[in-house]
Structure formats: structure tokens, C-alpha cells
């Protein structure tokens, strides 16, 4: 560490021999991170690929893929995951956009609102599922209100397997509640670095607030939207504990099936096949977002 710092700030005279060490110094500093990520990030991903194409005896086989595809829950899990993502991600982005625009609109006490709205950042998906379980469960708070208002005698079984739509909505609400804060923070960080002059110019030219948002703010916010969409979609594909806390296995999703095949059915190969499927979904999605929201250099420059 000693020599490196000195050389980096250029105080110590740098003879030829030490000049070489200076070139190498950053690489030595990066090496532990690179090695660790290679061992515990890259390698397991490759392992997952191998596992997904191996049978129980370890020889190359399409058996895991076949078993995954013929499982009765497979199509259901895929459909649920995709629909949940399509429902939750746009809801989160719109809500987060509203939240960050409200915060930027010159509200008194905006700082306090910001911290209150950011609180779900620290809440896990399992805890979020349990929080909303207390609301949606048969004798929970929502039914207490419904019965209390005289809207129903006994309330409604939101989480019963007989009501797939309401299970679905309950999970979507819980996911939106938990993860909107993350999108908000990303968008707010993006909004803050947009120079004020753009909005002022729009005002000078007589733009309405809506026009200003639509034609000035949103295009400039595109890089942040891209990041938020990529991260949120990948996380939505992995929705897991929140689903199981609210719906048990009545609402199969891909990550839940991964867990079920590994934990309950003791089959790491099929579990790996599911994991690869989630990865495939994620990569395809990232590709689509990068293409659809391609940003020009000058826009990237201001983020």
C-alpha cells in the first residue's frame, strides 16, 4: 500500500524500477475483487449451465430441461412470472416517476417525504410479503375494514386459491409497495442532475408543466429510466419470498419453482434449468431495454 499511494500522488521520485510497480499497482488492488467474482459469480453461472444439461449421474443430457418442460407447473410459473413483471414494473416506474416529480416540485418538507418514501428500501421481499399478509389474510386488516364499513358480512378470501386474480393483485401490490422506492431513488438521482436551465427555458417558451415533463424532463431522464427498468425487471423475474409468503405455492413463479426443485424435490439439475431460464429472460430483457431506450452520447454525458 505504502509505495503505491506515494507514487500515485507523484511525491516520491519515481526511478525506472518503481515506475513499473506504479503501473502494476492498480491491478494488484483490483486482483482480489476480480478473483473473488470469478470464483463466486462467474464460475457458478457456468456451473449452472452445466448442471442444467446433466442428468443425475453427471453425464450430458437434456433430461433436466425435459422434466422442467413437462412439469404441470412450468407453463403456469412462466406465465405468472411474465404477467407479474408486466404488471408490477410499469406500475413501479409510473409511481416512482410521480413520487420523484412531486419531490422535485418545490414541496415544503420534501426532505421528510423523501425519507418516509425511501423506507421500503430496507425491507426484504419476505418481510414485505408478511406485512401484506397481515392486511390481505382472511381475518386481516383489509377484511376488518370491509366488514367494519358494512360492505360485507364476512369479508373476502383474497388469498384463496379459488381467487387467482385477487392473489395475483395482492402480490402485485406488495411488490409495488416494496420496490417502488428503489426506482424512485434512481429516478430522483437522475432528475437532480438535469440542469435547471432546461426547465427554465421551457417555462420561458410558455410550456405547461405537463408539456415540460413530457418533452423536456422525460427525454433527459431516459438513461435513469433505462437503468431502473433493467434492474427492476431482473428483480421482478426473481420474485420469490413475497409470492410464497402471500400465496404459498398457489401462485407458482419461476424463482419459487427453482427453490421447490432444489429444496423440496432435491433435484439440483432441474433447479439449475429453471435458474438458466430466469437468466435467459433477464438477458433478453436487458437487450430489449438497451435497444429500445438507446441513448445518445450527449444524453449520457449529463447523467
Amino acid at each position: 500500500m505504502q509505495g503505491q499511494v506515494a507514487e500515485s500522488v507523484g511525491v516520491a521520485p519515481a526511478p525506472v524500477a518503481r515506475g513499473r510497480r506504479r503501473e502494476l499497482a492498480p491491478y494488484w488492488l483490483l486482483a482480489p475483487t476480480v478473483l473473488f467474482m470469478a470464483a463466486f459469480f462467474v464460475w457458478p453461472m457456468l456451473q449452472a449451465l452445466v448442471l442444467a444439461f446433466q442428468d443425475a449421474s453427471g453425464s450430458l443430457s437434456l433430461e433436466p430441461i425435459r422434466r422442467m418442460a413437462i412439469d404441470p407447473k412450468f407453463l403456469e410459473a412462466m406465465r405468472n412470472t411474465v404477467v407479474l413483471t408486466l404488471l408490477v414494473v410499469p406500475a413501479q416506474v409510473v409511481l416512482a416517476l410521480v413520487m420523484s416529480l412531486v419531490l422535485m416540485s418545490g414541496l415544503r418538507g420534501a426532505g421528510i417525504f423523501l425519507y418516509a418514501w425511501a423506507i421500503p428500501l430496507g425491507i426484504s421481499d419476505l418481510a414485505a410479503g408478511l406485512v401484506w399478509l397481515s392486511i390481505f389474510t382472511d381475518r386481516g386488516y383489509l377484511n376488518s375494514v370491509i366488514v367494519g364499513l358494512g360492505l360485507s358480512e364476512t369479508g373476502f378470501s383474497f388469498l384463496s386459491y379459488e381467487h387467482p386474480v385477487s392473489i395475483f393483485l395482492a402480490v402485485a401490490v406488495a411488490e409495488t409497495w416494496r420496490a417502488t422506492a428503489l426506482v424512485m431513488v434512481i429516478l430522483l438521482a437522475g432528475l437532480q442532475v438535469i440542469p435547471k436551465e432546461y426547465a427554465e427555458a421551457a417555462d420561458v417558451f410558455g410550456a405547461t408543466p405537463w408539456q415540460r415533463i413530457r418533452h423536456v424532463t422525460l427525454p433527459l431522464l431516459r438513461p435513469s429510466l433505462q437503468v431502473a427498468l433493467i434492474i427492476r425487471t431482473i428483480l421482478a423475474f426473481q420474485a420469490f419470498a413475497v409470492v410464497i409468503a402471500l400465496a404459498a405455492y398457489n401462485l407458482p413463479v419461476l424463482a419459487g419453482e427453482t427453490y421447490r426443485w432444489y429444496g423440496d424435490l432435491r433435484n439440483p439439475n432441474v433447479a439449475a434449468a429453471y435458474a438458466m431460464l430466469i437468466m435467459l429472460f433477464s438477458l433478453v430483457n436487458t437487450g430489449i431495454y438497451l435497444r429500445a431506450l438507446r441513448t445518445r452520447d450527449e444524453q449520457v454525458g449529463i447523467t
Partner: protein
Amino acid sequence: MSAVVAPGTLPDASEPTPGRLVEAARRSPRMRWPLYLLAGVLTFFLLFPIYLITIAAFSPRAALFAFPKSLVPTEVSTETLLFFLNSRGVLGSAWNSVLVGLITLALSLAIGTPAGYALARYAFRGRDAFRMLILTTRAFPIVILAVPLAVSFIQWGLYDTVFAVALVHTALALPTTVLITSSIFIAVPRDVEEAALTLGCTPLGAFTRVALPLALPGLAASSIFTFVLSWNEVFAASILTVVNRTLPAQVFSSLSDSPLPYRFAGGFALIVPSLVFIFFIRRYLFNMWGRVSR
């Protein structure tokens, strides 16, 4: 997106939240009650569920089974929480969670801080590529790591240990740690380090006595971020453990055969540390979640 932010711009950009919002408030003194109404509705949606799980956790069991329930606590009791805490495996798993969090923290700081420092202080070939690689890890689903690592950990005899879970959590936290520490060291002016050197500090002394203390609040916030990440992680912890569960894994694995009071108290217990930590690092929210995720 991968462009390295020029030194000096970052501290401004990561701090100004309250300042700039206040400034915006001064600029527009008009009455804006619809905005306040909207903000109020949003606050209700985001905070009321936390209030509900809190009163659920502090209600006696009888009140939890009553129906319809009251939305204001009728009787405060620790019965439900104590029932949860005394359930088999809960205290042990809470302790495991703390251990996993601390090991994750130590590992990711020890491994990530040098890399962050290198990104902040050196211009070298491959720096942008490295940054890009670190950012790319965000595009991969984490769920995929757990299954193959479980298979490997069984072979290595690490399966079902606190250390194994900490290794996976470190893999999750490390990219963020590197990016955060690099932004922290960018924010520490190089001049003060140089000044210490000219005044006779050794280079290591300049780092430990000048740069490190200045970076310490940021590093502490980064540590809290890592701890919360580890504390909240369910999937990998559930797959990698059988007996030595972490708290989320313990609660998760007993979901199907536990009564509602256990689950409500469990939800509350999982939330509390995070709420406390978020409070302490609220000033750094943008550094942690906003800025770093781009």
C-alpha cells in the same frame, strides 16, 4: 453510462438532495394543495402497512385472532413477539444472521475497498472495462448463483455453514462496495493526502490518518448497506442452509407450518433492524441506491 464521473462532480451530485429541494420550495411559494394531497396519499400507502404490522406484532394473540380487528391498538402486549422469539430456531437464526452480516461486511470491505481506491486514484488501462464489468453484474439474476454454489459447497464441506452464506452475500455485495468506496475516495480530496505527505507523513500514514478518517462516514454507510443486503437476503440463504438458518431463511422455511402470530411477529422482527439502519444512512441514500445503480 459507464463514463467515469469526473472527480469533484460526485460529492456535489450525491449530497444536494435536501438543499436543492428546499431551494425549489423557496422558488415557488404558490399554494399547491393537490401536490400535498398526493404526497399525503403516497405517504399513507407507504407507511400505513408498517404501522399495521407493528400493532400486529404488539397485540396479544387473542387480539390477533379477533375479527374484525381494530386499526388502533386496544392492548399492547409483548406476548406475540415473545412467542416468536422463543420459537425453536429463531434466536439461533437471528444470531446466525448477525454473523453472516458481519462476515459479509468484513469480506466485502477487505476485498472491495482496495479496488474502489484503485478506481478512484489511478488512471490505468482497463479501468473503464473493469467498471463496466462491475456494472454488468447487475444484469444477471442472483437467483442463479445459489443452486450451483450449493452443489459446490456440499463437495467442499462448506454446505449449511454461516461462512458459505456469507460468501454468496459477499458476491452480491462486492460490486456495490467497489463502486461506493470508489465514489467515497473520489470525494476525499487528493490534496489533503498530498499535504500530509509533504508534511512528513509516510504514504501509509497519509492513507490511514488522512484519507481513511475522511472516508469513514461513507465507509460506515456502505457497511450498513451491505449488512442490510445480507440481513434481507432470503433465496440463497434458504438454499444453502438446513440447520444453520439465517433469520429470513428460518422464517421462510417455517411459513407453511406456523400460526399467523409467528408470521406477523417474524415480519416485524425482519423489518426493525432495516428501519434503524435506513435511518442512520438516510443522508447517503443516493450514494447507495441511486448513484451506484447507474
